[in-house]
């Protein structure tokens, strides 16, 4: 699971969960890739991203210092070097082993071999 995917996921489908976002993330193992950077693409991607959730994800791999703690006003005014840091967080980090956790019910969704399992039976309790 690329770190970016965390930004799109919620636990609102669970009973009695109203927001379910952002999911808590613990990362036991991750891989770092070197995927080609493209300025425009990174901006398009960032426009879809919820910033607080992105900070949660970056912190989970201890790389929150790569990106500003406040959301930049305009992504297209950032330098290539700044955008490369975002690109690294979004695309280069593959979570191999860890957990996604519902912020309200604390239901745990395990990530194994890079595949998160959102079906766990505890989810319905």
């Amino acid at each position, binding site marked *: *699971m690329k770190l*970016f*995917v965390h930004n*799109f996921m*919620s636990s609102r489908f669970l009973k009695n969960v109203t927001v379910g976002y952002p999911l808590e993330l613990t990362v036991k193992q991750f891989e770092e890739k070197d995927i*080609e950077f493209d300025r425009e693409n990174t901006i398009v991607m960032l426009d*879809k991203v919820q910033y607080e959730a992105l900070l949660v994800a970056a912190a989970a791999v201890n790389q929150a210092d790569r990106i500003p703690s406040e959301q930049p006003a305009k992504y297209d005014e950032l330098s290539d070097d700044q955008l490369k840091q975002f690109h690294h967080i979004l695309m280069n980090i593959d979570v191999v082993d860890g957990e996604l956790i519902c912020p309200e019910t604390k239901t745990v969704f395990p990530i194994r071999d890079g*595949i998160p*399992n*959102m079906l766990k039976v505890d989810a319905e309790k």
Partner: protein
Amino acid sequence: MIPVLVIFSQSHVDFRKPEFDAICSMFSIEVNGSDSINQESHVFVLHFESYLEVSKLLSRSILIKFAIDISIESESYDNLYQKINENPEIIEKFDVPEKSFALRFFAIGRKKKLDSMERIKLFLDAVPFKNAPISLQSPQNELYLVEEYENPTDTSPKKVYFGKLIGEGRSELKTKYNLRERCYIGNTTMDPELSFIQVRLLKHFPANLAMVQPRNLVLDPFVGTGGLILPAAEFGGFVMGTEINYQTARAKGRSSRQGVGERDESESIKANFEQYHTEDKLLSILIADSSKHGIWSLNAQFDAIVADPPYGVREKARKTVKNKEVAKDVYVDRTDYFHISNFRIQYQQKEEYDLESAFSDLLNLSARILVKNGRISFWYPVILENYCDENLPNHPAMKLISNCEQPLTRKTSRRLLTYRKIREPVEDEVCEIQKTGVSHYRSVLFTPNKA
């Protein structure tokens, strides 16, 4: 405008025009004569504004075999030779010492195979090339002689064309993605040619390699072994998929290949992407129930959705249910219990997912998580005697833009439906679907024929 001879593959003819239109619209290619494209003939003379536009079209088409810049179009060989005599510059242009050439022959519409060497010899006897060297391997001018027949039994062609090859389509992709050599396949993995056409209908993919490629996000909510997101990744999309079946998502259990038994350790959806060198494009596979739209956050937005929902014939159609609500007659799959590292995890029970709900859920999900003008393309099973266009799923925020049929049996077929999101859905707007037929698909299919 330049007259170009476009030669199509003879397979999947129902998909020919939609694929052609989708590519032209993607690149804003202006074509005169595209209305003449039909399913009966396989070669068409179309007019383009530039060679570059033809090349763009070829770069994305799996159903076009090749395209030829027409030098001469004639009714017979005599007529062809006469035209060459009157306009010797047609051949002189190619017959120069610094340009090597090859002459190839292609006949379409005739049953019996023709002796192409003989045809080429006859042509070169009548039209000698004096200066240009021959290079069969890598000619600078690849010239074509194309015969088109009206009826398979006719002895002489209706039309003879002569011209230079502009380029070939991408039919090699169906070979590259063939299922025999693919690392991980399932029972219902999509035919590679059709999977590329389906992705093509989404139109969303980047215009040309030199241009900036928009980072398209593509989702398959019934991902299976990844057969539909592999072609999306081939064309530059970033892809994601959800799969409800734990074993499929993790590539465990028995192989779909005959006589193989248990699946190999090396099989996985990720391994498929690695096989085609597109693993950078795989965002994630999730084990999740696609009928639960709440797995996606409010900011989640995709550019395109591809899907081949299970019809419950060769793969079970299922969604999760609360365990306590499981009724007696509900189907529970035993393979959903596993022993993992000495402790037992109980997975959710699943029930059969009736087909109408599956398709309305899919359109409702699309209306919510697609960007505006985003597209969804999915396969829809049809019982022929019940089919009419009005009964197709209908969502007020989604517009049906393409509908192609693939016949399956005497009583059934499936249709590849493509919808475009025309606006954000208003609250409480949901998909309407007629309760006619789809839910009976299984029973109709398995009813013995009454002789």
